[in-house]
């Protein structure tokens, strides 16, 4: 049980962190959210079948994000997202540690594209962003997304369509 939980969390933790970070723009708070979500999943739902862990974990993460929104001021919400490694913005290409098989200049290009994408995502209403990331990135189907967001499948479709339309409008022509 612990091994399968460990594998599940190891597989999903980075995506969950990124989703939280994109939603709230604060690395430390995003890490706290992911940690709390992991603990809640393990304590409350570890006895459930592993096939249910994904939707449950996402649901907990999304709720934590929404709670964060509710408990933080407007000032904290209006953030400028800093990419995970703050030093990378000012570092020369030689200083950037490249993952295997990836050129630093390509990485920087990707970082800029990601930053543009994250800024566009940040401008979406929370529910639209949640629906979009869960559907498009996590690969959940409409029913699973609805479960994770605790809403109807119709709402998911509406949020997703609006998110997609808004992103196309914001990114078209300026984003690869």
């Amino acid at each position: 049980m612990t091994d399968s939980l460990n594998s599940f969390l190891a597989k999903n933790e980075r995506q969950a962190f990124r989703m939280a970070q994109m939603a709230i723009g604060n690395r430390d708070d995003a890490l706290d959210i992911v940690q709390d979500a992991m603990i809640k999943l393990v304590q409350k739902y570890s006895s459930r079948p592993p096939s249910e862990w994904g939707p449950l974990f996402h649901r907990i993460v999304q709720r934590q994000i929404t709670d964060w929104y509710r408990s933080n001021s407007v000032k904290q919400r209006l953030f400028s997202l800093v990419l995970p490694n703050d030093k990378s913005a000012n570092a020369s290409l030689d200083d950037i540690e490249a993952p295997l098989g990836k050129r630093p200049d390509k990485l920087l290009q990707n970082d800029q594209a990601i930053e543009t994408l994250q800024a566009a995502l940040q401008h979406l209403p929370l529910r639209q962003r949640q629906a979009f990331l869960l559907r498009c990135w996590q690969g959940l189907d409409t029913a699973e997304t609805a479960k994770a967001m605790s809403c109807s499948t119709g709402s998911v479709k509406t949020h997703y369509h609006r998110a997609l339309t808004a992103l196309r409008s914001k990114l078209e022509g300026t984003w690869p």
Partner: protein
Amino acid sequence: MKNNQNEFETNIRLQLNESLDSIDKATQSRLNNARNKALSAANKSQFNIMNWFVPLISTAAVALLLIAILPTNFQHDIDLNLATSDEFIMVSEMEDIVLYDDIEFYQWLESVDNNS
């Protein structure tokens, strides 16, 4: 139109996946620590369940023994008491916490939707 939409979604998915590779070592280390903390909480939780499980079984065994040795004319009353006790244990130990969490979750979500 549909193909364009699929390509657009695919590009976004690829970019987001790329963003996972750029997570720095310090953040990855904190994620690992968070995972370990969560898993150790699970072990601790299992340990606590065992702490409750042994006395519970012992109590049940003693209760059964008492039923077996007590006169039959008291049997009916004792069975009723045990049934009540079992129901109480079931209600207090099983899904109530999860159920409560769900109810609270939906109430909370409804209030958020109403406010938006």
